[in-house]
């Protein structure tokens, strides 16, 4: 078998780096993109472990057997490597309660998923009893949700910020299942090689990225300093919110409804990000989403990356070319007096539908999935961040995911929610206006100060509709 062919076959089995595949694929021409497309599934499938699932102990949960024989349908994650793991988990629930659960796979894209939920719930469909919802949706889906406060209280103490985010007019729309926060990843081997440390400020990061990039380009002319998510989509809202909050630039819309976007610190933060494009970051970063950034970084072609916690277990998997050379920590802060570390809050919650024919069984399932033992297993096997504070001090979790300890303060104080609760069902309008403006700024189509002033008007118009 030729070298090229071998690489492509390895790619299909998830054994080759993206870069080597693209090189090989370039040699065979048109087959390239297909090969690249195959990579994603391959890389991810390596992450699964089952130690956590094997150690699952449900005895403390007191799951009810009152709903034995009832059948519910639940929408969980998209089709992917976690399916077998989730099915095994759900089987344990059925075994303990007698409730039969049909797991429905939702769309991969969050936007598609929300549209599907809105259609189902808008039609008051009884087909679905519970579903996982994004941290920015409680305001949108609140009219269709059962109150889960009692179920959550039975489970223990969750992070207050996330609970507050999920509470709309006194109703708990979803129990936090796992959480997410923007993190800075770096190549620990390179940071050490050039005698640098973890960047404290954005200026540190820029200098470090430049040093490493210039050094590494002698051998790898395509090496990049810093990759992140710059495409015009929800992910850019997350990145840009971190830039402005870390620079003391406010939260786009404050919890009291004030539109605070038009301030010099936010404008400075956007101008700073614009200066990365084409210097420490590739010009194409303005079209990158999470997996584009991870593709470049995990194949050893970038020094720093902004991404979510899921990237950790993938970067440390056995087939990763940067395994053991990975550092992760808080994103840098700005320079001003109000500068602070900031990480955008992400994550998923379990919601029970108001239109369910078996509401008690649905609530029981939500309680099970978000309970401490399940979150522990999820953290150990999939590096999913727990929403229960105590798990960040849990020995088994910390052994599997040593960086979790450092993240606890992020959720206790730092994780920044997007302005989704205050903008309720108009959040997508707010986010669209925001990421569109920021994308136009970082691609150089608009002047930051002028564009932010226009954005302020747009946001005020949207908020006036509430």
């Amino acid at each position: 078998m030729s070298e090229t062919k071998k690489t492509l076959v390895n790619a299909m089995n998830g054994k080759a780096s993206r870069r080597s595949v693209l090189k090989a694929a370039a040699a065979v021409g048109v087959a390239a993109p297909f090969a690249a497309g195959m990579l994603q599934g391959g890389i991810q499938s390596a992450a699964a472990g089952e130690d956590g699932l094997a150690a699952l102990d449900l005895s403390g949960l007191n799951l009810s057997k009152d709903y034995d024989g009832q059948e519910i349908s639940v929408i969980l994650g998209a089709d992917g490597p976690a399916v077998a793991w989730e099915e095994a988990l759900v089987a344990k629930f059925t075994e303990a309660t007698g409730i039969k659960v049909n797991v429905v796979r939702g769309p991969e894209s969050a936007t598609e998923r929300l549209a599907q939920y809105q259609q189902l719930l808008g039609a008051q469909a009884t087909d679905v009893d519970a579903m996982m919802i994004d941290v920015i949706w409680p305001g949108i889906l609140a009219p269709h949700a059962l109150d889960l406060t009692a179920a959550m209280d039975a489970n223990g103490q969750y992070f207050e910020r996330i609970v507050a985010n999920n509470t709309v007019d006194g109703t708990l729309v979803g129990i936090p299942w796992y959480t997410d926060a923007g993190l800075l990843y770096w190549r620990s081997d390179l940071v050490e090689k050039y005698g640098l440390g973890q960047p404290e400020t954005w200026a540190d990061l820029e200098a470090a990225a430049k040093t490493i990039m210039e050094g590494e380009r002698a051998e790898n002319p395509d090496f990049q300093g810093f990759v992140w998510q710059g495409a015009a989509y929800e992910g850019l809202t997350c990145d840009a919110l971190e830039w402005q909050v870390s620079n003391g630039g406010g939260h786009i819309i404050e919890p009291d409804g004030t539109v605070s976007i038009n301030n010099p610190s936010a404008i400075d933060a956007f101008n700073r990000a614009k200066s990365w494009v084409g210097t420490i970051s590739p010009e194409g970063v303005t079209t990158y989403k999470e997996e584009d950034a991870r593709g470049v970084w995990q194949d050893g072609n970038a020094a720093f990356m902004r991404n979510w916690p899921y990237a950790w277990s993938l970067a440390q998997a056995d087939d990763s070319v940067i395994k053991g050379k990975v550092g992760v920590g808080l994103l840098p802060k700005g320079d001003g007096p109000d500068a602070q570390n900031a990480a955008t809050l992400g994550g998923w919650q379990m919601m029970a539908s108001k239109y369910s024919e078996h509401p008690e069984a649905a609530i029981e399932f939500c309680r099970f999935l978000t309970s401490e033992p399940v979150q522990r297993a999820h953290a150990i096997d999939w590096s999913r961040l727990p929403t229960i504070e105590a798990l960040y001090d849990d020995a088994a979790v910390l052994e599997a995911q040593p960086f979790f300890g450092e993240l606890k303060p992020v959720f206790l104080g730092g994780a920044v929610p997007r302005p989704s609760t205050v903008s309720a069902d108009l959040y997508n309008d707010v986010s669209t206006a925001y990421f569109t403006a920021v994308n136009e700024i970082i691609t150089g189509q608009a002047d930051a100060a002028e564009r932010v002033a226009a954005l302020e008007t747009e946001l005020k118009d949207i908020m006036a509709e509430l």
Partner: protein
Amino acid sequence: MSAISDVLPADQPPILNMKGGNKPTSAVGRRQERLAWIMLFPSLLVVAVVALYPLFETFRLSLTNTRLASAREPRYVGLENYTDLLTDPLWWSSFQHTVQFTVISVLIETVLGMIIALVINSNFKGRGLVRAAILVPWAIPTVVSATMWQWMYHDVFGVVNDMAVNRLHILPDKVAWIANPSTALWSIIAVDVWKTTPFMALLLLAGLQVIPGDVYEASTVDGANRWQQFWQITLPLVAPALLVALIFRTLDAFRVFDVIFVMKGYATETMSVAVMARQTLIDKARLGEGSAIAAAIFVCISVLVVIYTRLIKIEEA
């Protein structure tokens, strides 16, 4: 209604006349008219259910501020959605991109398609194979080919930059084809041309094949050169097929969604009107405003259809 009268014997008067001029007076004529309506009914019903009703519904929604799955009470807002749309700079920039995309891509596709059709219409060895091979880009689903091109255009690892900078040395530096706002729309047009030229070539080939060979023989005898033959014989005779192909392509191009959505998402510098409609309808869940955009697209398409059908009538006359 011409389809019905076409299949009837030539001496029968037209049974259905939309202008209501020639009402059938005889009992036979009336019976036949009734029969025609009965037989038309199922197809009219299907058209009404799958086309007219959704269209009507779209227009109705466009006069309200309905939102998807919202607790808000929908309200009649008159033409407000339309006046808002016409004063929205995003609509006009999207409209401009759509027109630019349509005119340029259809123009290039027509010229290239004609050249390819002329080549594969001539006699050479392996013609069947070439005809089949040329259709490959058209056979690939747009979502797949757009993703494929996205990788080929990749600013750091893409084949296009590798070829242009490292191998052929036609460019000094790598270009972020999709990310750079000044090259993005052109890159997308190139993908559409790559994909759709074969379709154009195929339709034109069908038109070329019905031109009888003796016309060319006669003109050769008269001393016409190849160039004159093309302008005087080929082009006029292929014109009906060309017009049909242009209608297909123009309407298709004006509704462009997939290739732009896959490659650029909601970036404003390449947004087409269909992408804007989707963002408003699905992402923002604004059924009212989104329906107004859909209705506006419908009006634009209708104008194009009227223009083209006029052209065909002139052609036929």
